């Protein structure tokens, strides 16, 4: 990488100074501040009082925290499998120029530009128990037994919400894989064909290894997105019924802003931070390696 030594020591800081100060004040500073707040009993009004690790001790015994943690885990496990595999399959199918491929791609991309709030409202209507499309279709087909209270059944509700997230995520994964496929060495693919490899073998042994770097990125992004989950739950269920669809971000929001237990909420966000730190770390190591290469 070609970089020059600055003509004076000051030059880079002339460019960096202001942006960096803003970034430190609004992003890096608050990150550390969250740690401090999590050790206090701040209620949002009076000055925070230091209570050491009591918030964390209480978290471990809070059933809603455990449910939220499990739900985030469900979200992660779904996100690193279903959209990744489907997105890859779609990308493979659409990689060759098909008639109408622009229409196909646009259909799969479309949900991605809608805000999660809009998606949540649209799907709440799809899931509506009496007049929603899904139950209406079942009734019309005489499959009354398949109709459900999609957002009121404690065992179904989390999956119903995750399904919406998947609907939106698949197009995103497809975009990333389509970009990855452009960089696949077509000469290698042709050569393996000539050597008599069938389509599956070509995919498994020639294309897949070359998609490995993009797959790491797709999975990292999927995990981080799962940990960020908030909007859909907030719009569709508010974590209900009986907290069965609560995720960490919602739990934190409700504790902090509805119950005014800001210190407690901060402890939840520290947990969220520590989980994401693992994956941020993996990602940063990758970036570091490409920097040095």
């Amino acid at each position: 990488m070609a970089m020059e030594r600055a003509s004076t020591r000051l030059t880079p800081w002339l460019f960096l100074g202001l942006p960096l100060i803003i970034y430190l004040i609004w992003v890096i500073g608050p990150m550390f501040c969250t740690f401090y707040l999590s050790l206090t009993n701040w209620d949002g009004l009076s000055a925070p009082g230091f209570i050491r690790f009591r918030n964390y001790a209480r978290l471990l015994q809070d059933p809603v925290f455990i449910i939220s943690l499990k739900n985030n885990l469900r979200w992660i496990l779904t996100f690193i499998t279903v959209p990744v595999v489907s997105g890859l399959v779609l990308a493979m199918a659409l990689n060759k120029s098909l008639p109408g491929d622009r229409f196909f791609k646009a259909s799969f991309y479309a949900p991605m530009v809608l805000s999660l709030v809009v998606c949540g409202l649209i799907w709440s209507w799809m899931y509506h128990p009496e007049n929603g499309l899904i139950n209406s279709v079942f009734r019309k087909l005489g499959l009354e037994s398949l109709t459900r209270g999609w957002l009121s059944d404690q065992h179904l509700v989390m999956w119903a919400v995750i399904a919406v997230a998947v609907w939106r995520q698949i197009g995103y994964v497809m975009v990333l894989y389509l970009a990855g496929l452009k960089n696949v060495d077509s000469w290698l693919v042709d050569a393996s064909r000539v050597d008599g490899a069938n389509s599956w073998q070509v995919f498994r042994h020639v294309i897949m290894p070359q998609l490995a770097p993009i797959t790491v990125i797709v999975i990292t992004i999927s995990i981080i997105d799962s940990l960020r989950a908030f909007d859909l739950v907030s719009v569709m269920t508010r974590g209900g019924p009986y907290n069965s669809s609560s995720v960490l971000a919602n739990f934190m929001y409700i504790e902090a802003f509805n119950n005014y237990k800001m210190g407690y909420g901060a402890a939840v966000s520290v947990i969220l931070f520590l989980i994401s730190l693992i994956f941020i770390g993996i990602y940063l190591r990758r970036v570091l390696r490409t920097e040095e290469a």
Partner: protein
Amino acid sequence: MMTARSFFRSPWKVVLFFVLVLLALLWLIPIITTVITSLRTNDDILSRGFWALPEQLVFSNFRTAWERGGLSKFLPNSFIITIPSLVLTLLFSSLSAYALARFRFRGNRLIYFLYVGGMMLPFQVLLLPVFRLTDFLGLYDTYWGLIAFHTAFQMGFCTFVLRNYMVTVPIQIFEAARIDGCNAFRIWWQIMMPLTIPALAAIATLEFTWIFNDYLLAIVLVRSEEHMPVTAGLASLQGQFIMDWTVIVSGALLAAIPTIIVFIFLQRYFIEGLTLGSSK
């Protein structure tokens, strides 16, 4: 270039084609359903069911959402928040990206890592201190609180992408300019920025939809309807018209129009932005 006719000679490909048609339609069903719902009256749906042919198509739901639902206020608010955030974050990011891409100095890598790490952060982690900070600065429940946070938080991603784009520009271009006596800021503005336009266009498109679609910060940093962007407004619309789904989904459609326009006309940049963000 394969023509349609030669394509359809292979039976497998015909099957593939029809599977894709079905899937694509399936994918669009929620959106199509929403459009149809928004054009019917609530009574019509409640009394005659989803599958009945509507007696008449109406636009009154849109008017209700726009006037009584408050979208006439919320939607402009979204632009008032999004446009300055977008401009500022691109400006600051291109400044810091330039420094990180062009100069060797102590702390370069550390600062780069701060930006990359911050971009991956679930921003819920920052929520409570940022709430405190806006309150402290007197920015709570104003446009500027949201603008300041969006500007700062999106700098992580923008700096990352722009810096990686800028390091690919050959250094010789700048040598010539320096010999001609250009100062550092003129080199940035007159040489680097024009070369960076493709990347700027891509991330601007992407960032527009991201900032426009934000919901969590909007409900945390703004309380009054006067300053609420459309995402937060929709949630309050949902509470107000709780039984009237035709109005709710009409509101959702109206709120989505700006991003849909971006998608239709700037799809290429949007996709490019997503790919640039993952190219490292």
